[in-house]
Each structure stands twice: as structure tokens, then as C-alpha cells.
């Protein structure tokens, strides 16, 4: 009953909005003193300057620059030979920092790590995020000391980790815990921001996830007398583990 009423209201609002939309577009065209633009116009200035699009660093330079940039923003970077080393790295950190609750994405790469058993062995309770199962997921992430994700890609030029949302990959995993660990297989590390952004244009609207986050360091603020504070709302500790 309530729902029906609400849906009827939404429908009414949409009809109103569509009418307003026409008014908006006609007003814009009128102000610009030309007929309505119905077709996509040619866009001669799309994207970054040409010289920039030709820039591509070799793997070693990408790794070095990524580390420099993320470290400068207050993050930490470790270069590890394989997934086994990544598992050990996280386990040691969990022990060092006394992590009790850990939340991770239900990612194949992370499952292959065999992390859960190793972390359980050092006394941490691991939740594996998966929206297909019923669970108070946000609460699981909010209580977590560590959030563990596999980055979908990374950008050397800006020192950014890229994470996309999905049923198995909650946005909260990279946001609510105190510390964030992101595993980055080195072949996912790009030179420029544009290399990642262009893939979203190529994929098109329907293929995009609800959210895509570029994370370039720990949460920060300088709002109190320009004094830098780390971990205001998001994780105050960010580790990028470059694997391979």
C-alpha cells in the first residue's frame, strides 16, 4: 500500500521532471540562439593533449613512480614477489597491529591466497563480503580493523588504487576499516589516469559498476589550522602490495 503510493508519487515526479527537462533544453537552445542540438556534436578536444596520451613508462618506472607518489601522500608500498609473500605480509601486519576483525572482498585472487586460515591462526575473525548472502555487511566493515581488496587497476602517475564495486566487492571494504590493504598484481599498474578512464568509455554505461573509486592515500584533512590529520573518515593506513 505504502509502496504503491510511493511508486505513484515517483511516477508523477518523473512526468514533472520530463516536462521540466524539455523546458530546460529549449531554454538553453533559445539562449544560445539556435535550434535544439539533437545529435551528438563532434568533440574535437576530447581527452588529454596528444603528447600526453603517448606517454608510457616501462614496468620498473611505473613501480618506482607509484611508490613515490603513494608514499608522498602518506601511504605505504611493498613490492612482493608472489601471492604467498602477500599473505605473509598481511598476516604479520595483523599480528603487529593486533587486528581482531578483518573484512575482505570475495575476490578469486584473495581466495587463492589462503588468507582466511592464516589470519584465523593469528586470532583474527575474517568476514568475506558477498552481497548474495544476507548479512549486515556495512556493520561487518565498520567493525573491521583491516579491509582487504584486490585493486582492479592502479595508476603510477597519481599513485592511485582503483576499486570497482560489485556484489562481491563492497564499497565499504575500502572505506570503513581502520587500515586498507590492496593487492595489486603488477600487470594491472598503468602509467596514466587516462588509460583507466578510457576503459569506462569503451565499456559503456551498461557495463559500469555502481561505483568506481580512485584511492590515492589515507583519508586526510587540513581543516583545523592547516594541520594535516590522517584518518578523518576513511582508513588512516593504506598499504599497496605490488605483487609480481
Amino acid at each position, binding site marked *: 500500500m505504502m509502496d504503491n503510493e510511493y511508486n505513484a508519487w515517483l511516477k508523477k515526479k518523473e512526468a514533472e521532471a520530463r516536462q521540466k*527537462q524539455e523546458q530546460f533544453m529549449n531554454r538553453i537552445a533559445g539562449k544560445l540562439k539556435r535550434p535544439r542540438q539533437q545529435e551528438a556534436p563532434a568533440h574535437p578536444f*576530447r581527452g588529454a593533449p596528444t603528447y*600526453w596520451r603517448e606517454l608510457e613508462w616501462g614496468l620498473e618506472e611505473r613501480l618506482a613512480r607509484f611508490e613515490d607518489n603513494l608514499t608522498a601522500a602518506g601511504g605505504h608500498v611493498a613490492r612482493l614477489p608472489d601471492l604467498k609473500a602477500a599473505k605473509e605480509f598481511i598476516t604479520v601486519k595483523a599480528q603487529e597491529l593486533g587486528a581482531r576483525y578483518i573484512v575482505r572482498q570475495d575476490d578469486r585472487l584473495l581466495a587463492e591466497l589462503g588468507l582466511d586460515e592464516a589470519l584465523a591462526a593469528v586470532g583474527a575473525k575474517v568476514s568475506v563480503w558477498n552481497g548474495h548472502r544476507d548479512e549486515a555487511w556495512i556493520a561487518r566493515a565498520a567493525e573491521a580493523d583491516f579491509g582487504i581488496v584486490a585493486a582492479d587497476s592502479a595508476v603510477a602517475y597519481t599513485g592511485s588504487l582503483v576499486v570497482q564495486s560489485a556484489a562481491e566487492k563492497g564499497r565499504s571494504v575500502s572505506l570503513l576499516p581502520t587500515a586498507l590493504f590492496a593487492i595489486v598484481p603488477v600487470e594491472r599498474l598503468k602509467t596514466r589516469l587516462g588509460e583507466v578512464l578510457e576503459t569506462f568509455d569503451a565499456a559503456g554505461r551498461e557495463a559500469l559498476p*555502481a561505483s568506481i573509486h*580512485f584511492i590515492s592515500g589515507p583519508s586526510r584533512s587540513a581543516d583545523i589550522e592547516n594541520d594535516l590529520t590522517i584518518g*578523518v573518515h576513511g582508513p588512516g593506513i593504506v598499504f599497496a602490495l605490488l605483487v609480481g
Partner: protein
Amino acid sequence: MRTVKERAELALNNEFLRKAVRFTTERLRDGKRKASEDHGNWEEWRERGRQIRLHTIAHLDYYLNRFAEQARANGAHVHFAETGAEAVKIALEIAAHKAARSVVKSKSMVSEELHINRALEEAGIEAVETDLGEYIIQLAGEAPSHIIIPAIHKNRHQIAELLSREAGEELPPETSVLAGFVRRKLREKFLSADIGMTGCNFAIAETGSIVLFENEGNARMVSTVPKTQITFMGMERIIPSWSDLEVMATLLPRSATGQKLTVYMSGITGPRRTADGDGPEEMHIIILDNGRSEQLGDPEFQELLNCIRCGACLNACPVYRHIGGHAYGGTYSGPIGAVLTPALNKNVAEWDDIASASSLCGACYEACPVKIPLHDMLVYLRRRKVEQGYGNKLETAGMKGFAAVTASSKRFHRALKAGRVVQRLVVRNGEIPARIGPLKGWNKYRVAPSLANQPFRERWDTLQHELRASAALTVTAQAAQERMKAALNRRAAKVEGREAADRTQRSAGDHAGPAFVRKEGQTYDG
């Protein structure tokens, strides 16, 4: 509302504010300079940014329509609001249908334009600003004074006092303690809020996505935890594609804070997908005009819509750096505010004279990552105000008189001659200290120089000889310097004496004192 002059005077007398604004703007400006030099080819990027914005605005009907259609296809509810009041009404209706009791907000200049917090509170809904700086000024009941660092004008002791009241216990004025309290406090708010409200830095037409830039993570919280998301978006926030975002993401953080990228850049494409474990179940996007479309087709002001709200013009502006954001009296401060506030308001009668508070130095244009000629726009605003009869009557008369005198060289020389005779009544030791007529404003803080007995033009022949006689030059220069020093000493002693006398006469409310005296009188001839 006070006048610009009164607001500026208030700011100029707040020593902490002036120091804080200067320190912050210098820090941000240096950051921007380093970041743009480090990136290289900055001019080419600025030009690219400008072209993308020009192109988008020139075809705004196509791109905005495309964005709305694509956002709907993503499952978002799109609304259009002509005025701020309409946008508020839509948001309140949504809140009412959701029986919302609390709203968490991330920083958004558009929502400042709407005064949505007040409207929500009147409807009995708690509205919490979650950006650290915005939270602080919300507790203080104030408006942001800088587009990027809203609480620039508050010191840590004031902040500790505000937060202690909220905490119900005494918090020490230490940044880490204060920020830690805010983290805990706002966590509760995020987790219990019914609605999250965000602004929108860019909207991508091709995929109907909105993009948010931030450092704290509160915009992510607001768009992750509550079940309903409402995004306010200025109708001009559009860019065509994700590829274009690379240019904006290069220009915006570097220009705003000198960062290579903000800590978080988030692209949100519709509400959560069916099986997602978080994110809003319902997403509303309210697209706002509120005077923006007035700029379209106006050759003088259309480029105003290119603005990406980075705040670089504030940090570069010598006027902003002296008087701070509140003196501008509107939602937007600094050079962009001085132009945007009147431009968004069709009613010229309601414009105040903030456009006159500028030296037109063009530093804002130099700093702007999309090359908006703000200093030209300030002149256009002044002209429009005068043309529509809202200029200063006395000034208009003065300008007419000036035009009449200077239009003919004979009249000009005659006027100067008369001036030299008449000024004898008011000249004291080569200066005119009297605060009468048109000299009132100028002489309040300075001393007007007198007209020279022999005008420059009449001296030119002699001067030419002097210049040629290079051997004699050094002697002349030395003598001139000595004369100047003596004159300056005399003047300083006298001005101080006069100020002391004045202080005793003035009421306690008047703040002028020795620190206020500017000695900027130069000599100029006819």
C-alpha cells in the same frame, strides 16, 4: 545585511583571520605552483580544459539531456529545478516520503546556495555536515569562508570549544584529538542517517555518472551507507566523457590544493545493483538552474559556466587575501564569487558593490585552470550597474565632469590652473589632509598629494636636458633622495600626531588606529 565596506572592515580588524587567510592562501598557492610546474606544459592543459568546458557549454542542451537520459537508464531519479526553492521543495518531498529523520551531507557549494540545512531543520530533520571544516562551521552557525577550506577563519581554540560543547566534555586544542572526536561522532551519524546528500564535481554525459573529488572520505560515506542518496548538481557541471575527466582530474586537484589527485575520486553510476551489499537503494539527482542559464548566450559572461570550483582565484587574489571570504557576503567568495553572485541574480538593484572591490590586476585569470577572464567580467558588471542606473550618483556626476574637462586640452589646462589656485585653501605642507567632498574616502587612510606648482608637461623641456646631462644625474638623484627622505619623515610625524588627535574625538566603535594608516600618497602632476 552590512555593506561590503563594513564587512571588509570587520575582517580587517580580525588579526587571526587575516593571518590565517594569508597563511592558507599562500600554502595553497605555492602548492598549485609546484604541482603545475611538476606536471609541465601547464598552459597546454589549461587551454585543453577551457576547450572542453567551452565545447560542453556550447552544446549544453545535448549533453545535459544525454546525461539525464543515461542517469535514468542507470536507475537514478532525475529532477530539474529552476530555482533554489524548487530544488529544496523536491528534496523535502523525498525526505517526507522516506519519513527521514536525519540527513548526512558531504561538502557541496550548490547546497550552500540552497540553504538546504535550514529548510531541513525547519521540517524537523537533522542535517549534519560531515566534511570536517563544514562540520565545524555548522556548529558555529556560520558560512564557509573559503571554497576549499571552509573553516579557514577558525583557530584551534575556538574549534576545541565548539567540539567540547558537542562532546559534553573538555577537549584539548590538539588536532588529532579533535579530529578523532569528529571521526567517532560522525561515524554514528553516517550509520544511522536515512538520507545522504552530495554535491557533484562533474557529471559524465555519456554514462550518466556523477564524479566526486574529496580527501576525507565523507562523500564516500554519504554515498555508501544511507539507503537514499540525493545529489545536487548545477546544470553546468557536465563533461562529455570519462576521457575528458582525465583533464579535469589533472587541473582540479592541482589548482585547488597542489595535490596530484585528491585522496578519493569516485564515479557513481546509478544506485546499488541488486546484489550489492552497500550503496544507496535509491538515488535522486536534482539538477539546478538558479540563474545559471542566464549566462548562456551572453558573450561577456557565458565563460563563467566553465568554472570547476577549484578556488585557485581566491588564493591568488590580493583582495581576498586581505578581507577573507565572509566579506563577500554570498555563498561564493573571492573573484569567482564577486562575479558569480551578481551574475546569478538578474535583479541589478540587489547587487552590492563587491565588484568594485578589485584592483583588476588579473591574478585570478592567471590562476584559473580554465582561463575564465574574471577581471574583465568585473568591469562588465560595473558597467552594467551604471548603465542601469544603479551607480553611485556622485561618482556618475564626477565621471561626467572628468570627461568634460579631459575631452579638451585647453579645458584641462585651465582646470589645473584653477586647481592650483583653489587648493591653497586646503594644502598643508604640500599635502591635502582635508576629508571633504570626493577626498573623504581617500583621505581616511591616506593623504592626498597637492597639485604641483609647475605641471610635468611644463617641466618636460628642462627634464629632457637633465636626463641628457648624465654626469649631473647622480648628483640630482642623491639630492632628490634626500629631499624625499626628509619629506617622508615630516609626513610620518605629522600623520601620527593627527591620528592621535582624531582617536580622542572618535567613538570607541571606530577601529582606525596607527596600524591602519597607509601612506600611499604619491606626487603626480598635470
